[in-house]
């Protein structure tokens, strides 16, 4: 652990809503930690000149197209590529027979064929790929591959997966966690039950998958792609190519949006195979439809809950059954299930908990990592239960939540003690005091924005307002014994610092943070962050906020080592330790002011390098009864949603979202606000519109008209009411990653508000209009 993080401090930071509030950046430093440093690539991205993978070009490149299964479940009787291979302009056709190495891959469990050989298990599964000299030729040739199928009955209901014929040699049950904590015979005075369904959210990256594979003269291949986990992707691809990992290089290009795993190896491996086969560069740019068919989605989940409480509303016991639809392949389902089971009770003190969780295989589209996985689905359910309990007991829903709020030192149902800051009650309290937005009747008629949009069908007389609260939690970093490690190198020369770290900038702002860390430690203003490729040491996947913590920690250590190298000779000369010297604004001064020199002078034309690693304390897998210290750290958030519902049409407009979040320490105020706003908006999508629909395993409307993302008219005013800065002593800088927890909590808050407005149960996300209609009270 870093030395400066060893002292915990507790401060709070409050922002009031603009425009009345003071400029939040007033009095903040221009660089270093705590500054609102803008991203270095902001201008290029805004102007549209920032290059993404789809913009790559190489002399003489070929275009790839992938043939995908039109059936969710079928036996492949034959694949005939003769017609396709004979088309003019076609340079190569590859199927499962042409894979030199392993035929299967998987980021966590190796269970997924690169190309289906005997069975297709989901709509859109890859069967073959073509390289041709024109994208249309490639697409036509892929369509000309004759595949004979024996169509099989798809298993699309996860409840039926248990008894169904195995869809895969590994069986249909991917993981079962029976969490047992406390006394099963305890019964509460009050019991509420509920059944909740969560839909299939798609990460819907705004840039679809794309990549360029370039063969190397040594028989290896380079993959230029927007990977968020380049080293794992390299290892998987190399195993399939039958090459040593060193002969495959993944070069990370601009990432056009990533809220889940990006650039599934299912896109990269065919690309690399075709480049190796043809000896030419090969480019693949997925269509929007292919993107929806190919990548992993959020787990559709079915949850059954029974909450026991005493007459004062204190939770006594929680019983739950959680069923995750993993789709055809395991991917990260095991990890999602662990999060769902461990956080099934939410940020509340629960003395007895019995949670059964299953992740099962079906012929539905594959599920995998999407921000807030597992935790988001259970949050919608346990918060629904808290609302139900409040209604049954006649207690104010906020008061009920405060009576049960978790805090540091409490124990989770996994028997893990919460050692990090857990200011849950304080978060909720901050929201309770925040003023509510004006009612439509109190603002000028021209400023009304009713459900249904401007000039829409909304009618003021049918609109009801609802206010709902939710609390949510997520874990940070990989769980259950995952080796979380990152390596970073810092170099300084001529007063300019460079960071080399294979942590991918996905838009989350990591490179900005890296620059701030080095500015803070070395006192130099100009810091460059090198582009990422797999020749650098691994930094792990860009998920679970791990780069803020692990890669940020590694960069800080490396920067501190450079600092020591820089100051050692001076300290020696003046007979003082390096700790007594300060670097700020390019100047080195001693504590007593006797020494004053510039960094440039001290460098004396030298070039200084240092490399360091950060590896947080280890975790352990959940045991056979769901017990264990599985998580490195936890983050909490409280959200208050205010909605307007047209109770005749069932249309919902979110008017305002107020957020209070546990952030540890604010490293970049404007970036932090952006992360929270983005997370809340993604949560609103999950609550109201985002559901990738299927019919008998076939994806319906795989386009951005059918899959409705929130637009600027759907995104409400988002007020960050309070950011609690209670430093997490084990985290570098004491900061908690901030992106995931608003995604987890917002859908539950919106559901709670719609419940308040309509009096309907609202037990399904996204909320369908027919679930939000109500009879007007006389």
């Amino acid at each position, binding site marked *: 652990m870093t030395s400066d993080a060893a002292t915990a401090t507790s401060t709070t930071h409050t922002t009031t809503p603009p425009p009345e509030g003071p400029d939040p950046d007033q009095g903040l430093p221009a660089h270093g930690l705590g500054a609102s440093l803008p991203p270095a690539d902001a201008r290029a991205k805004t102007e549209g000149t920032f290059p993404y993978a789809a913009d790559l070009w190489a002399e003489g490149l070929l275009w790839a197209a992938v043939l995908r299964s039109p059936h969710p479940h079928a036996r492949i009787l034959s694949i005939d590529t003769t017609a396709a291979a004979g088309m003019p302009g076609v340079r190569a056709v590859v199927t499962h027979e042409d894979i030199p190495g392993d035929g299967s891959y998987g980021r966590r469990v190796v269970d997924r064929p690169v190309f289906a050989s005997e069975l297709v298990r989901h709509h859109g599964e890859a069967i073959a790929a073509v390289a041709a000299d024109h994208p249309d030729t490639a*697409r036509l040739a892929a369509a000309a591959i004759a595949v004979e199928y024996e169509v099989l009955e798809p298993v699309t209901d996860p409840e039926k997966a248990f008894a169904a014929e195995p869809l895969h040699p590994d069986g249909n049950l991917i993981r079962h966690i029976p969490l047992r904590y406390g006394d099963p015979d305890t019964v509460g005075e009050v019991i509420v039950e509920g059944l909740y369904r969560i839909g299939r959210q798609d990460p819907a990256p705004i840039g679809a998958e794309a990549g360029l594979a370039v063969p190397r003269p040594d028989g290896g291949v380079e993959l230029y792609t927007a990977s968020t986990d380049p080293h794992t992707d390299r290892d998987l691809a190399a195993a399939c190519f039958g090459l040593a990992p060193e002969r495959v290089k993944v070069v990370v290009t601009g990432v056009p949006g990533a809220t889940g795993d990006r650039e599934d190896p299912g896109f990269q491996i065919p690309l690399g195979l075709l480049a190796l086969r043809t000896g030419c560069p090969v480019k693949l740019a997925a269509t929007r439809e292919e993107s929806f068919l190919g990548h992993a989605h959020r787990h559709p989940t079915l949850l059954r809950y029974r909450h026991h409480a005493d007459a004062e509303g204190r939770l006594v016991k929680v019983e739950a059954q959680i069923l995750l639809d993993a789709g055809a392949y395991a991917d990260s389902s095991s990890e999602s299930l662990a999060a769902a089971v461990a956080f099934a009770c939410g940020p509340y003190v629960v003395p007895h908990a019995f949670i059964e969780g299953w992740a099962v295989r079906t012929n539905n589209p594959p599920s995998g990592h999407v921000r807030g996985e597992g935790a988001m689905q259970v949050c919608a359910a346990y918060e629904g239960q808290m609302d139900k309990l409040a209604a049954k007991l006649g207690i104010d829903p906020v008061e009920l939540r405060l009576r049960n709020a978790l805090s540091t030192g409490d124990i989770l149902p996994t028997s893990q003690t919460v050692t990090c800051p857990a200011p849950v009650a304080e978060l909720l309290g901050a929201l309770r005091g925040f003023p509510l937005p004006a009612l439509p009747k109190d603002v000028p008629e021209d400023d009304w924005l009713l459900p249904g*949009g401007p000039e829409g069908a909304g*009618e003021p007389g049918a609109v009801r307002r609802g206010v709902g609260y939710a609390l949510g939690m997520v874990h940070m970093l990989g769980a259950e014994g995952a080796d979380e490690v990152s390596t970073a190198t810092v170099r300084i020369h001529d007063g300019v610092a460079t960071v080399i770290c294979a942590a991918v900038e996905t838009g989350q702002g990591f490179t900005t943070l890296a620059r701030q860390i080095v500015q803070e430690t070395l006192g130099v203003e100009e810091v460059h962050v090198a582009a990422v490729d797999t020749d650098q040491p691994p930094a792990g996947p860009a998920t679970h906020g791990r780069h803020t913590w692990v890669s940020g920690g590694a960069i800080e250590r490396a920067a501190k080592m450079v600092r020591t190298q820089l100051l050692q000779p001076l300290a020696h000369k003046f007979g003082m330790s390096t700790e007594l010297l300060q670097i700020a604004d390019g100047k080195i001064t001693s504590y007593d002011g006797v020494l004053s020199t510039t960094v440039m002078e001290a460098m004396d034309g030298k070039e200084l390098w240092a490399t360091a690693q950060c590896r947080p304390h280890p975790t352990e897998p959940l045991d056979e009864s769901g017990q264990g210290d599985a998580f490195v750290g936890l983050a909490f958030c409280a959200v208050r949603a205010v909605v307007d519902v047209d109770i*005749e049409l069932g*249309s919902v*407009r979110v008017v305002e979202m107020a957020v209070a979040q546990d952030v540890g320490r604010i490293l970049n105020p404007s970036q932090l606000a952006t992360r929270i706003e983005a997370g809340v908006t993604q949560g609103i999508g999950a609550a109201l519109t985002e559901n990738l629909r299927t019919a008998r395993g076939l994806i319906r409307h795989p386009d951005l008209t059918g899959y409705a993302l*929130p637009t600027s008219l*759907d995104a409400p005013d988002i007020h960050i009411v309070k950011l609690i800065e209670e430093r997490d002593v084990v985290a570098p800088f004491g900061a908690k990653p901030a992106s995931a927890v608003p995604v987890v909590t917002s859908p539950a808050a919106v559901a709670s508000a719609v419940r308040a407005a309509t009096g309907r149960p609202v037990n399904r996300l996204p909320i369908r*209009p027919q679930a939000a209609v109500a009879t007007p009270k006389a």
Partner: protein
Amino acid sequence: MQSVTLPASLDEAVAALGAMPAAVPVAGGTDLMSAVNKGLLRPSGLVGLGRISELRGWHYQDGHALLGAGLTHARMGRPDFAALIPALAASARAAGPPQIRNAGTLGGNIATAAPTGDALPVLAALEAELVIAGTGGSRREIPVSHLLAGREMLEPAELIGFVRVPLLHAPQVFLKATGRTGPGRATASVAIVLDPARRGVRCAVGAIAPMPLRPLEAERWIASLIDWDGERGLAPDALAAFGEYVAAACIPDQAPPDDGGEAPPLSPAVLHLRRTVAALARRALGRALS
């Protein structure tokens, strides 16, 4: 793509299509090009209609407006157009995001004939006629509903030139229900047009069937209740009954089985759609009469 021609007049465009029967006409391209990009359509040639200035405006002809098929949604949404045909302007403003409205055209909306096409219920309620241009400068007229219902088709080398819409000088309303506050496809839409000269109310419901539906009996019934020479207003009960009437006509109950038993109930989703149509029709008529 073999060729792209850009004729400057309607007759030139028709001639170009006649000379190259496999070519496809394209105006805004908002539907056509997405089908091309998806690989669903590979036209061997395109006849671009974007330079035909006679199609991009409108003129007047004995109590009617003759609207060019190349009028964009953005143009139809402007206040001068809204003063002429308010419901068509409202549907144009509701049709997708600004990028689509700037490119998409009235003629394209008719030719694509998507069930969710926002202009279509308005044109059905207005009983609009299409002026179809054919070879050698010929013109013929067909009701828009005949084309949408497939009763009459466009012949090869024919183009929708103009849409003849009556100028009714009376309130018109278009309302649509969507899944989000931002632009989206209609789950149901209703157009109401008042025709005081003929003492008629015309209503069309969009997006719930392959083509707009006209509840003719409901129209006649409600028109008979309106005091056309007086205040025109209706009691809330009458408005609500009209909404129910329209919804039941467009989304009927299931037929009872042949053995004479109970008719199977409508699914909750269909019932919700029926409630939505009823609320839209009630609100639309209420706004038209207020």
